[in-house]
């Protein structure tokens, strides 16, 4: 059987994408108290995928860039770790806010996370805040998550997660494990009972609770696995 492109393989891919969407949409939410472990478990799965991709890389392979402007595997991983740090800060803020009681949402703007989508300059994005907020009311979180997972629309990362060109591969491996542990640590022990009601809103990302944010960063990490695999498959990749 050929695994190359064919109508049959395109049909199968469509089957998979639609089935995953429906599967996520109808998934029974975890019972109270298990939300965090379930969300973290999915995220851990994505990180294990990242670790598998960089486990045997040499420094030369880690730094290889297939073309100007295309990230190396090292840059991809650094970007993932910076993204995790960005959201870890927000998780910490949400936990602190939940502990105080009262407010249940942290509203971020493009000043906090200046992400963008293809062909739209960062400076223009704030002008789209209102239409994007309206759009997000009608788009289920799972559809947004799928948009993160499937690179149909290219995205522009926030400045805060812009990776520097070179990183020690040994350091990246250690930080990939340590960073996940640090995120997991936030959800250990006694957590405010109203934490499940807390949300983070952003014009482009919509309004999401903590498991939904984990869903987004898991999908984001899986999307970068594809980018990293394309670097690995490049004919000029150092063997």
């Amino acid at each position, binding site marked *: *059987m050929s*695994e190359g492109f064919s109508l*049959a393989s395109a*049909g*199968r*891919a*469509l*089957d*998979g994408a*639609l*089935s*995953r969407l*429906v*599967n996520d*949409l*109808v*998934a*029974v*939410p*975890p*019972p*109270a108290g*298990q939300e965090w472990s379930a969300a973290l*478990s*999915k995220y*851990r*799965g*994505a990180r*294990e*995928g990242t670790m*598998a991709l960089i486990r045997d890389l040499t420094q030369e392979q880690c730094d290889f860039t297939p073309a100007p402007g295309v990230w190396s595997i090292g840059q991809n991983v650094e970007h993932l770790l910076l993204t995790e740090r960005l959201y870890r800060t927000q998780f910490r803020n949400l936990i602190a806010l939940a502990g105080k009681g009262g407010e249940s949402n942290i509203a971020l703007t493009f000043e906090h996370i200046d992400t963008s989508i293809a062909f739209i300059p960062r400076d223009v994005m704030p002008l789209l805040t209102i239409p994007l907020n309206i759009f997000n*009311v009608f788009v*289920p*979180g*799972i559809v947004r998550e799928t948009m993160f997972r499937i690179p149909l629309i290219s995205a522009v990362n926030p400045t805060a997660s812009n990776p520097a060109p070179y990183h020690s591969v040994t350091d990246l491996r250690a930080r990939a494990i340590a960073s996940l542990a640090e995120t997991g640590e936030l959800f250990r022990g006694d957590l405010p009972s109203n934490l499940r009601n807390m949300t983070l809103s952003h014009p482009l990302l919509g309004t999401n609770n903590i498991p939904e944010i984990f869903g987004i960063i898991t999908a984001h990490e*899986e999307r970068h*696995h*594809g980018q990293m*695999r394309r670097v690995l498959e490049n004919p000029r990749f150092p063997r």
Partner: protein
Amino acid sequence: MDYRANFGTVLGLMQRSAQVMSFLLPGHEMQEAQNKLEAFRLFAYVDQELRIPTERLLPLDALVRRAFDLGHHERIFAIEGVGHYYAGLAASPVTGLLQDRQLPDCAMVSLHAGMGTSFAGTMLSRLGADPSKAALRDGLLRFFDLCRDNARPGWYENAIEPLGLSVRTLHPHLLARAGAAAGEIDIEAQRLYWHGVGRSLYFVPMNFMTFGGSHERALRTAIDEAPTVEDRRNAVAGLVWAVTLVNLCHPRVLQSLLPACNSIRMPGAVKNGIVSALIVWKHMVPEDTEFLPLYLQHASGSSMDGGLWNDYVVDPAREAFAAAFPALAKEDRIASVFQFQESFVPPVTKASHA
């Protein structure tokens, strides 16, 4: 906005619309669409159907008892949903999930299918999009161990068969690789895998609509995707099984499938799928006296449709219920029908799968 609940409402509306349309339009398509939607809704929204409380996890036998209050046909998909729901929420690591003797024997097929689907889905989601060969093999071994640790003795095959269904539905890019990896571990697991793939082909989005030659398309896909003759037989048997069981209360749907089945010239696989589904129905709903007899009654006259019905359904089913079913039930080996076999005479028990 609760998108899950809204989607459930939409499914219910679609099902009711199909029900109304089935009275107005000729043919089996609307009835079949309604049956498919109902099977999926009962499985995916079992928590709503059985009004399962969210604040605490009820014991599994209590959930199964609730499902027994539903109609015969609804019950089998709801119990599969219960198995899926319960396995998904059970604390990890879980053992002995379905080994409680309080659980009725007639719920075993559905519970093992649901549990296997849940375990396979979880394992696959943790593999990432493109696992290495070693990671895939490790994942499958973990899945097999988990099924072995939680299946009731004699039901292991029933629990691992949904692996193929989960892969084909949610991770179809792994279809060939996972089948080969399963076969490297255990050739029987490969057969069960392709049976599960066949079952999934009845529900995947490209075949979900019941119009436009969906039966022919699904059969063709089963044949094209499976790499070996044995795998093809299992995929076709699995697909035919799903059509038979989902539409069991409406035999005309199976009747409409038979001309397409006849054209692929794989009578053994088709008969196996039909009879296996009838065997598990008899096991799951032993008290049924309404529907099963319809499949044991010869069609009169000499029409082509009647001939196919007698050849593919009635004769093999009568034979199986006369000899194989009593033996399989007596030996607690109903799960052995989850793969294609030349004959339903029970093969020798494999101790490793007990």
